[in-house]
């Protein structure tokens, strides 16, 4: 919303004050002012009123005229002018030699053989409208040579406030409400609005009007006729233009002017079309043409203004084409009303049509504004067109009472909330200047909230704090820390685990952390041939590519691996993120926090890569939980999983994740010449596992003994198990030192370490145990190689 300082100055005397500083303080105390401030009229100078004394056709141009103008300097000046509306006796805006219009300085200029000593200007050139159809036609009786800036309010300071920062302030949607803020900030009084006295029309007939639906909170109306003026005064047009509106005709301009001044939208009907005003909803949907000529679908929830049963306007949004004021309109009915804000807002959403009026109604307008707005309208109208006559009495109906709000608090409440001490006088003065009724007894305040703040904005004591402090100025606050006792803060286990996982993966394994989205990517999955599995869905995704929430990070991570397939021959990425594994029993989403890791390599064999990933997982578990991991063969659950080497990951007996390879077709689409392995673990489950502890055993001071045994076996697991089953305290560890193939098949050479805490071991002392291990394995058909 654009705001004019001239307009605001109608209501507050800023004499002796720096207006720019006030605007800056407005930004800090009320609502954010956009950075760019417009100094209207500052870019023109030397433009004066001049009278055209003679007009001659240009001998060689159909468009150009040769003028002699009187610019009040006691001589006639030759001007070549291309405007179509030149005529003798017309007064216009004239840029003299030396005048400036923006970057241009007016100099004598040859035009088709004649020299022009100045330029007649259009409203657009003066900067007061976008009308460039002809030069200005000044109607005022004013001496030639008068500076245009002395004649009209060309000069103004215009600033913009983002509508979003006014959502909670229905009172700030017009200049008068803004002026109230400026008055409070400047410490100057706010002048009352000049209005017509409507009581003198009380004896006139009432308008046939009835609110039939409580969504209309208040409806005030008045009939006026005999309006002969059609054009708005220039200064009114300038203000409208500076505030972003175009002048249309006097009546339309006046309703817009009123809206910009008081924040109250108004509408003028042709009285013939609204003989029986009814405000109501319809039981069935229908179509309705608004005055912009658009046919709109109206449903049973939309409040309508009607003539009997014929709809004539969408309440609070836009008038109808059929009831618009037309050339032969003699009597008009002025509407000034308040409607239920939520209803208007929902209607604008349904109609997908937001107007300046509906924008204001959505904010819960002050219902006390309807009558003063009409009184102000009549005053402005009669000032411009003294013949205009009011032909009805004010007809006003309420279907709603807002709460009259009274708030009681004391100074210590204010002190406690602010943390500083603001004296009682300042509090009283501030609240009074904002229109609050204030009574002070000792340190106890009793505050009445004015109607324009009471519809939703100020309802409780904390709201009053804001009123006091924002005008006091947050820059003026003495700031200090709190005086609260100290207590230890224990970090959340899951957060700690997450941080440690990231540190180990980045610092030790040089992996790269990535983020991906929480939904599946339709297009990217399709490109890789990854099935989109049914899961929880977004109801209102505007992008159909992202409708389904992911069950696992792995597919989105594989998409990222593909995207990076030329980044480096080897890399690993990981993500700690959320997935949803369907619904829980109570119907809520089963949200899980997962760690996903993928390793990509164009140089390493797949088995090496797979073991690297396995060792990463083992390290995480050993480091964070002091626990080993177990792996157990798993069945394919997702179509990107390779059926071979697919394992579940088990920690402390609980399944916490999966590790595997990528299904060949998917792998080939990611990168033909690379190997990829992936693993995913449930971070919540992993962090919930109770950590093992470090168990210290004093190392033996005596030499131990190593026994190497080769078995014909393709798997290490049974060997490890047999060693474990030997349950011998002297066994300190086992390694695999070699694996090889010969005519017997694959063999594994294991080295078993023995040590005794108190003596040097001999081979004979461990042979019983070794033979037991050999016997157990041979019992399972695993032969010892001699």
């Amino acid at each position, binding site marked *: 919303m654009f705001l004019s300082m001239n307009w605001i100055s109608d209501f507050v005397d800023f004499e002796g004050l720096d207006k720019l500083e006030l605007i800056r303080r407005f930004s800090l105390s009320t609502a954010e002012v956009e950075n760019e401030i417009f100094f209207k009229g500052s870019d023109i100078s030397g433009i004066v009123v001049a009278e055209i004394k003679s007009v001659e056709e240009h001998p060689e141009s159909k468009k150009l005229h040769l003028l002699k103008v009187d610019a009040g300097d006691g001589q006639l000046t030759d001007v070549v002018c291309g405007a179509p509306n030149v005529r003798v006796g017309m007064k216009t805006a004239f840029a003299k030699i030396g005048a400036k219009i923006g970057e241009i300085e007016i100099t004598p200029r040859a035009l088709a053989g004649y020299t022009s000593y100045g330029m007649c200007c259009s409203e657009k050139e003066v900067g007061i409208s976008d009308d460039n159809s002809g030069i200005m036609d000044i109607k005022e009786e004013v001496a030639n040579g008068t500076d245009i800036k002395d004649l009209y309010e060309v000069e103004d300071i215009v600033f913009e406030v983002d509508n979003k920062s006014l959502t909670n302030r229905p009172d700030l949607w017009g200049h008068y409400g803004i002026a109230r803020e400026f008055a409070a900030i400047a410490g100057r009084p706010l002048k009352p609005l000049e209005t017509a006295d409507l009581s003198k029309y009380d004896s006139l007939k009432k308008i046939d009007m009835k609110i039939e639906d409580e969504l209309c909170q208040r409806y005030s109306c008045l009939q006026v006729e005999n309006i002969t003026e059609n054009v708005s005064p220039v200064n009114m047009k300038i203000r409208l233009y500076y505030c972003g509106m175009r002048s249309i005709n006097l009546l339309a301009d006046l309703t817009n002017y009123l809206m910009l001044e008081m924040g109250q939208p108004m509408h003028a009907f042709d009285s013939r079309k609204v003989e029986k005003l009814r405000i109501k909803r319809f039981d069935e949907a229908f179509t309705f043409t608004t005055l912009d000529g658009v046919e709109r679908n109206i449903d049973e929830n939309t409040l309508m203004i009607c003539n009997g049963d014929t709809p004539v306007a969408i309440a609070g949004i836009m008038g109808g084409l059929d009831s618009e004021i037309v050339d032969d309109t003699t009597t008009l009915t002025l509407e000034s009303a308040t409607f239920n804000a939520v209803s208007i807002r929902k209607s604008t959403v349904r109609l997908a049509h937001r107007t300046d009026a509906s924008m204001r109604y959505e904010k819960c307008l002050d219902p006390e504004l309807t009558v003063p707005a009409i009184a102000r309208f009549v005053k402005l109208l009669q000032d411009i067109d003294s013949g205009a006559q009011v032909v009805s009495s004010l007809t006003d109906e309420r279907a709603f009472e807002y709460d009259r709000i009274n708030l009681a608090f004391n100074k210590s409440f204010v002190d406690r909330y602010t943390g500083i001490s603001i004296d009682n006088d300042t509090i009283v003065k501030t609240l009074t200047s904002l229109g609050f009724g204030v009574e002070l007894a000792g340190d106890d305040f009793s505050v009445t909230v004015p109607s324009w703040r009471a519809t939703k904005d100020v309802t409780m004591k904390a709201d009053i704090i804001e009123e006091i402090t924002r005008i006091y100025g947050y820059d003026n606050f003495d700031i200090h820390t709190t005086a609260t006792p100290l207590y230890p803060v224990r970090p959340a286990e899951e957060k700690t685990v997450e941080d440690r996982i990231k540190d180990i993966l980045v610092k030790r394994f040089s992996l790269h952390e990535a983020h991906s989205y929480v939904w599946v990517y339709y297009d990217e999955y399709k490109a890789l041939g990854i099935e989109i599995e049914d899961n929880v869905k977004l109801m209102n995704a505007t992008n159909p590519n992202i409708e389904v929430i992911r069950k696992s990070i792995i597919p989105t991570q594989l998409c990222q691996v593909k*995207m990076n397939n030329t980044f480096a021959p080897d890399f690993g990425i990981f993500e700690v993120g959320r997935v949803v594994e369907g619904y829980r029993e109570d119907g809520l989403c089963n949200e899980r926090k997962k760690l996903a890791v993928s390793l990509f390599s164009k140089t390493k064999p797949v088995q090496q890569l797979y073991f690297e990933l396995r060792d990463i997982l083992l390290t995480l578990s050993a480091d964070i939980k002091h626990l080993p991991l177990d792996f157990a063969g798993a069945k394919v659950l997702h179509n990107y999983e390779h059926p071979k080497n697919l394992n579940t990951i088990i920690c402390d007996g609980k399944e916490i994740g999966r590790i595997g390879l990528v299904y060949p077709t998917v792998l080939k689409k990611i990168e033909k010449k690379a190997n990829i392995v992936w693993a995913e673990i449930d971070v919540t489950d992993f962090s919930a596992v109770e950590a093992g502890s470090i168990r210290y055993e004093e190392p033996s001071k005596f030499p131990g003994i190593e026994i190497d045994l080769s078995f014909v076996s393709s798997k290490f697991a049974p060997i490890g198990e047999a060693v474990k089953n030997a349950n011998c305290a002297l066994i300190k560890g086992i390694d695999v030192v070699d694996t090889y193939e010969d005519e017997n098949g694959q063999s594994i050479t294991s080295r078993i370490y023995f040590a005794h805490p108190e003596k040097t071991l001999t081979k004979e002392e461990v042979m019983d145990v070794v033979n037991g291990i050999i016997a157990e394995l041979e019992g399972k058909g695993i032969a010892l190689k001699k």
Partner: protein
Amino acid sequence: MESKIALVRDEFASELAKAENSADLEAIRVKYLGKKGPVTELMKGMKDLSNEEKKTFGQKVNELKGELTDKLAEKTAFLKEQEILKEIEATPDFDISMPASLGEGSYHPVTLVQRQCEQIFKSMGFAVEDYAEIVSDYECFEALNIPKHHPARDMQDTYYLDNGQLLKSHTSAAQNAIYKKYKDALINDGVPIKAIFPGRCFRNEATDACHENTFFQMEGVMVDKDISISNLIYFMKTMLSEVFRKDLKVRLRPGFFPFVEPGFELDISCLICGGDGCPSCKHSGWLELCPCGMIHPEVLKAGGIDPEEYTGFAFGLGLTRLVMMKYGIKDIRDLNSGSLKTLTQFTDDE
């Protein structure tokens, strides 16, 4: 005899001068000081001398022996040093300017900035909370004083799920749970609630270089008996000065958020120009950074805390925005792209 000693000394000196390595030295030692060497010979030759001569001559032979032993040791040490010097000489000069390949891993930039913020708040006694991404309408709106049909719901276009839950549109959605978690300690034991909760948020909007449907925020709350606006400004100024590691100016402007009253928009003095005005702050000298305010009484009530007795402040820091400011990232979408060209640049930043 005297001349014999002189001869041995001269011969030894000339041979020692020629010695080039430890083998030469060993040969010289055996030759002159060994059992069959001239020193032993001289000793043996003394048996025919008178006692007086024995005394004089023996002393001289002993002197010779000591002298030869010392010289040999000296030369040994010298040669050793020479060998070390030779070894040093033989060590090549490495070209330290050769390009390096560290193979460093990398953190997501959000992780780095989030950790810095967490660290600052931890040092001030705040707990770091973790919260779900999928929440209920109650958590995200109702408990925050945003009833149905409130225009504030329009301001945050929310992703709704088919079971009625939604993707949280702001970290404030965790507030209610945090209050409920800590209120007993507050009310019964007087432990103030001090918590931050970083998390991922979602908005249903079209994406471009400045807009993302998925981004990170960090919410913070503090509740106790006498928390004031003055405290709020102090904490925001301190925290942000720590984050940016410079003494920042902050300013508050009224801002409307249903879950705070009064509510503020907090600006910091421009990081580039320090407040004088430059293109990156659009010549205002200020950067809008973070909404904050005193927790709305209805929000405290919904969390089981009596607003007559307790007050508190809350703030919502745009972590993603902070990341972009800190590292000069121009396109917000780079953060979720998974592009390693972007991500691998963010090694540890502490």
